[in-house]
């Protein structure tokens, strides 16, 4: 079907240009649903003489939102802000879309988003975003029920301190990783360090301190012991980032599934 459409598209455009004087939302919807991006861009390039500037930027913003070109979208959105915010379906979709985009772009979108025109859905998404940025100040009961567990997990990781994890690991290898929430790694680190410590102790007892193998064993144990302390410190920070991303991914899935929105209807 789409191949036929691609072939006939130039002919359709010739016919269309002669008869219409406005952007056809049905055609744009059809192109968007069938992911005919090149055809949609070609159609939008044809529009400038027929529609006002802000409408044109509004359609381009929608186009960039679908294709995931975030910086182009933000620039087109800035030029058609009022029109875009009046369209609740599109602004909701943009809100959902930016939950899982890189931190810089996400922040840029949510700071530029005008809350005054927001719907209950966009306010709820905003609350999720604020909770992800300032988890210790957020109230989990205000979030959707299905996201509460994820949020509590994420907030729990914020109570963990990297220096405590490092100190725990210095006392007992692997304990810091257990504290950070990496149970399997904690067990393996403990076994690995115990094995190296036993090997170093045995070679020290049997071969003496000046033996090359003893020096090698102690060096190896020292290296992995240092790695374990550093690893625990690093794990706390990594777990924090991972749980934040996981929370935002689940939030995005939740909103997409429970509140389906369309760009053109």
């Amino acid at each position, binding site marked *: 079907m789409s191949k036929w459409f691609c072939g006939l598209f130039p002919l359709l455009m010739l016919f269309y240009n002669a008869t219409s004087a406005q952007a056809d939302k049905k055609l744009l919807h059809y192109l968007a649903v069938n992911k005919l991006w090149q055809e949609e861009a070609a159609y939008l390039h044809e529009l400038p003489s027929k529609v006002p500037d802000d409408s044109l930027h509004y359609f381009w913003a929608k186009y960039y939102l679908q294709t995931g070109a975030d910086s182009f979208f933000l620039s087109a959105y800035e030029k058609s802000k009022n029109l875009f915010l009046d369209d609740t379906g599109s602004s909701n979709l943009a809100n959902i879309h930016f939950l899982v985009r890189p*931190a810089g772009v996400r922040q840029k979108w949510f700071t530029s988003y005008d809350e005054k025109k927001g719907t209950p859905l966009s306010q709820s998404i905003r609350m999720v975003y604020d909770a992800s940025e300032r988890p210790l100040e957020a109230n989990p009961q205000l979030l959707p029920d299905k996201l509460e567990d994820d949020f509590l997990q994420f907030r729990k990781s914020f109570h963990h301190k990297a220096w405590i994890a490092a100190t725990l690991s210095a006392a007992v290898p692997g304990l810091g990783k257990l504290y950070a929430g990496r149970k*399997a790694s904690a067990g393996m680190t403990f076994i690995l360090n115990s094995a190296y410590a036993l090997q170093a102790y045995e070679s020290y007892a049997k071969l003496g301190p000046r033996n090359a193998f003893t020096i090698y064993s102690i060096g190896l144990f020292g290296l992995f012991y240092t790695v374990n302390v550093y690893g625990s410190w*690093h794990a706390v920070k990594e777990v924090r980032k991972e749980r934040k991303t996981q929370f935002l991914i689940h939030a995005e899935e939740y909103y997409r599934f429970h509140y389906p929105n369309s760009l053109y209807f």
Partner: protein
Amino acid sequence: MFLLALTCHLNGQSSEQYIRSTLLKNTFDSYSFTPAPKRKLLDLSTKSFLSRINPANYLAAGILFVYQRIFSEQIQAQCKYVVSCSEYTKLSIQHHGLIMGSLIGLDQLSCCFPTVTVDYPEYLLNTKMQVINNGLDE
């Protein structure tokens, strides 16, 4: 009419080609051989002058080169991470310097065992149940 006829003819040709290429792909894909990607040497060209003349960096580069080109292929090492431990160490040394980079690489190595996947959220696991260790955006 001529344009319409030409379009139909071209579409017919391209669909025949498409069917042919799909058939070939489905029949012979399982027999195709994809060679392992060639691994590069530790790159210090972007580092400072002191880093470039530090012999310890070259020692690390040499050890990783020998491991990746000889031992890794001989023992058919299967890493639980998408970016293997040796490659990750190399990248970490390039990015963080010798001491911190080695610590980060060795930390991954000490956690490289089959059940480590339970420690990671599902978005960091691919279909082969490997941990995606290069996809974090923050």
